[in-house]
């Protein structure tokens, strides 16, 4: 295996795995699971090696670049590369997909098609994180949709069809807006390369104005909405609770853990740097949207009686911090946002696994119907507490570091109005503490509901899925430099780049 093509291998090994899965007769399910396990483990191993021993810290340049012509006549290139912003997310992708395989044991009727689609999904997600050509980026972006549609639509809960089509339509609507912007950018600049587009953006992109709005404003909003739907930012979030509630546990894990990050990542990689002037103009509006998401998401989560829906709305709230941190345009804020994406990836994935464990036993998710589960499932209680406190942002846990950095960064912003936003978002933190503690109390504490007396405690497979995520939640709480050192150079260069355009 050539080191210079390692990104291609990480991206396409799952595709090879998918071909292998399709070649196996459908009755031989153990073999299919094994192939899927291998096809998700190898990218994880490669990504780990990439992260710890191959990647050069302290530089903002793209590394492991692969670049050659794909569609020569229109200048589309197969252009891959990672920097400090994308590498942690690539690693997280490979980790969560690997965890998804054992977590799929409890999905009823998980078949050959299920594992094949899971692998195809991994190709799409990883592809987006490593693409540096906008056309390629878009292709991978869309490749994700179909597997996701079927994974929710076939193996989901009672309202799966509605949730699946809603997810598909929302995302496609967003990506169509993105495509319009890509076409417009291509016509103005003659390139699809994201770094070159960013250079063109910094030099002052111009184009025909339309309906009284400048070219860059149009491009900015089209791209922003396309990504905001994925994040999801209020008011584009309505697909999320449906998709989460209906999706089977491992798919929820992937959805919350990585798919939402694609939106945030898309903004800092392929939206803000390309139209930096427009971004500076609208930064405060984005901050406001972020704060609305934080407070609104937490407030609605407080009102949920469905365990999974509560976690889903908490995602809206937590991802709001990402937007707020990015909009503040300070090094702390941007670092916090990037860190928050990763940390939310681990903590929300852990939370969905937690919900999955109790759902597999009780077959319902009504928070008010539980009670005293801590007595019958003590180990489960312990693990849940860790996951929930990480999500809550308890000091010494990962979520605390990133949220604190985001808030401090926002407070430092040149735009004084951000201070008010920070104050308001603190309200979101209080609400978060409220719904998480209340949920813990309703499920685990109080008198033991007799129905739950005989429940078996969390088993080895479930612990195996949970453990890496919980370890990360704690580890990154006490040693955030394990991520920050990798990201910092890219973040600083991004912030400098964006500030120059103000």
């Amino acid at each position, binding site marked *: 295996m050539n080191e210079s093509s390692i990104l291609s291998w990480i991206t396409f090994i799952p595709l090879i795995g998918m071909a292998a899965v399709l070649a196996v007769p459908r009755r031989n399910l153990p073999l299919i699971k094994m192939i899927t396990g291998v096809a998700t483990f190898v990218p994880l191993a490669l990504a780990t090696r990439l992260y710890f021993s191959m990647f050069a810290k302290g530089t903002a340049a793209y590394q492991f670049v692969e670049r050659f012509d794909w*569609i*020569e*006549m*229109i200048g589309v290139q197969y252009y891959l590369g990672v920097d400090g912003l994308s590498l942690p997310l690539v690693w997280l992708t490979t980790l969560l997909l690997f965890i998804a395989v054992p977590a799929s044991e409890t999905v009823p009727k998980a078949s050959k098609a299920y594992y094949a689609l899971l692998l195809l999904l991994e190709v799409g997600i990883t592809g987006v994180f490593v693409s540096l050509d906008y056309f390629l980026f*878009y*292709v991978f972006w*869309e*490749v994700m*949709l*179909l597997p996701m*549609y*079927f994974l929710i*639509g*076939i193996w989901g809960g009672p309202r*799966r*069809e509605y949730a*699946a*089509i809603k997810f*598909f*339509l929302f995302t*496609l*609507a967003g990506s*169509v*807006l993105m*495509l*319009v912007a890509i*076409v*417009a950018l*291509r*016509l103005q600049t003659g390139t699809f390369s994201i770094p070159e587009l960013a250079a063109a953006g910094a030099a002052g992109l111009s184009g025909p104005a*339309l309906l009284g709005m400048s070219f860059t404003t149009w491009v900015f909003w089209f791209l922003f909405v396309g990504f905001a739907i994925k994040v999801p930012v209020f008011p584009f979030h309505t697909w999320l609770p449906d998709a989460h509630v209906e999706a089977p546990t491992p798919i929820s894990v992937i959805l919350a853990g990585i798919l939402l990050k694609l939106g945030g990542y898309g903004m800092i990689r392929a939206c803000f740097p390309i139209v930096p002037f427009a971004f500076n103009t609208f930064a405060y509006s984005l901050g406001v949207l972020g704060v609305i998401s934080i407070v609104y998401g937490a407030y609605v989560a407080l009102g949920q009686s469905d365990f999974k829906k509560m976690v889903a709305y908490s995602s809206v709230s937590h991802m709001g911090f990402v937007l707020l941190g990015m909009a503040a345009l300070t090094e702390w804020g941007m670092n916090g946002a990037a860190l928050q994406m990763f940390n939310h990836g681990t903590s929300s994935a852990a939370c969905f696994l937690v919900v999955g464990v109790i759902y597999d036993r009780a077959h319902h998710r009504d928070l008010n119907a539980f009670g005293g589960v801590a007595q019958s499932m003590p180990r489960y209680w312990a693990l849940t507490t860790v996951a929930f406190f990480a999500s809550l942002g308890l000091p010494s846990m990962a979520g605390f570091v990133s949220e604190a950095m985001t808030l401090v960064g926002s407070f430092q912003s040149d735009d004084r109005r951000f201070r008010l936003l920070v104050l308001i978002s603190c309200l979101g933190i209080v609400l978060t503490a409220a719904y998480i503690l209340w949920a813990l109390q309703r499920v685990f504490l109080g008198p033991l509901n007799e129905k739950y007396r005989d429940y078996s405690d969390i088993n080895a497979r479930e612990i195996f899925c949970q453990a890496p995520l919980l370890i990360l939640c704690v580890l990154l709480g006490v040693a955030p430099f394990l991520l920050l050192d990798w990201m910092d150079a890219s973040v600083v260069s991004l912030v400098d780049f964006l500030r120059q355009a103000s």
Partner: protein
Amino acid sequence: MQSVHAEGLAGIAPELCLVVTSLAILVVDLVLKGGERASRLMGYVTWAGLALTGFLLLLAQGNPAKTVYGLVTVDRFGNFFKLFTVASVAVVAYFLHSDRTERRTGLGEYYFLLVGAAIGIFFMVGTNNLLLLMLGLELLSLASYSLAGYHKHEKRSAEASMKYVVFGGLSAGIMLYGISLLYGLTGTIDISVMAGAASEGIPRSLAGAIHNSPAAVAVAVVLVLAGFAYKVSIAPFHFWAPDVYEGAPTPVTTFLAVASKAAGFGALLRFLGVLFAAPGTHEVVAGYGQQVGHLIAILAAVTMTLGNLAALRQESVKRMLAYSSIAHAGYVMVGVVTMNATGFEAALYYLAAYYFMNLGAFGFLLYFHGATGKETYDSLKGMGYKAPVISIAMVVFLISLTGIPPTIGFYGKYKLAIACFEHYPWLVLCMLLNSVVSLFYYIKVARYLFLFDPAEETPAPQPVFVGVMLAMALLTVALGIGVAPLVNWAASSLDILAVAR
């Protein structure tokens, strides 16, 4: 004189080959008295004739453009559509061959009419002479009317045929009237002459006519466009399409939706290209062409929106595909409105993409209609688990029709978008938003295929049929990733715009 004939006959060799094929079909039918063996043999004769025609067309591919007998233009542009027709009729003949609902004997007229329609298309797309174009169009139409009513005892089919005749006759009349006006205004029925300067012994050129009586030219052009709009089912001349598509036997519907529609676009593109878009066109005429472009842009937006909104509400998959093909006519128009080579190239590419994904979708319809006897979404339930390969292939066609990468349909939409964006950004947005709407009804098919448990027993598809569908699906993806061959073919087929004046 002899050399003129030698050249002329060589020029129309593909057409002649088709004529011979059609006669051979009749002879086989007559000799073997239309038994089951005859039906099979006629299928083989059709394929052999089409293969030979295709071979002749490929041989002629490199030749410089020329006009034979002063009527038939042999050029790469025409060849594009002729090859397209040969390829689609071959698949339609295969569909007919494997149609479970079709009776197995006495298929003579069926094959004969198909080849006859192809001959009509050949003349229609291969001439600058409006009269020959009209004749080709009528030959195509007459064959199509009969084909649509092929199941004459079936009420639906007979009604479809009748509707088709009435609409077709009316629009042919309108178009002919437009042509007569153009003839009156310019003194010629050859569009290449019409587009030229007035000094070549022609009393008036189009530029002169526009200068003298712009209103009359407007009426004439609009009337001619109406005729084309009918053929390619552009609003407001699309009303016949859903009923005819639904009533006609599925292979015929396939022919109408793919070959006949492409032929209409071929003639339309030649008409607009030669008149308005060729380099060296008179300023006034080119400006006029832009005006025509505005009109077509509005029609395109209306067509795709109407088609998609109507397709949303259908219960029958066949009718949904009919409305979807109306919407796709609107998409192709997005390339036409630009009135330049980039846009026309995108339109040609999109038609080629349309070939794969629509033939595939109709092929699926054919199988499932044959297997269940029904065409509603409901009867699709759980089919994906009983005929997995065909169903997965169908999903590929559907995402390609929606325009999701990495498929040929996405690249087609991308090319249209990039070609049209500078002229009509709103139309590009309209097209892409429409594709979001279309997702809703396309994915509904996938939903019924895979998201429900299988209901009743259905016969398994024939292995060859599975192979054909799989090949189509693989091409739909492969040509969406390696786009060069089709793009090059489309780009090199635009010699109508490169004619020196």
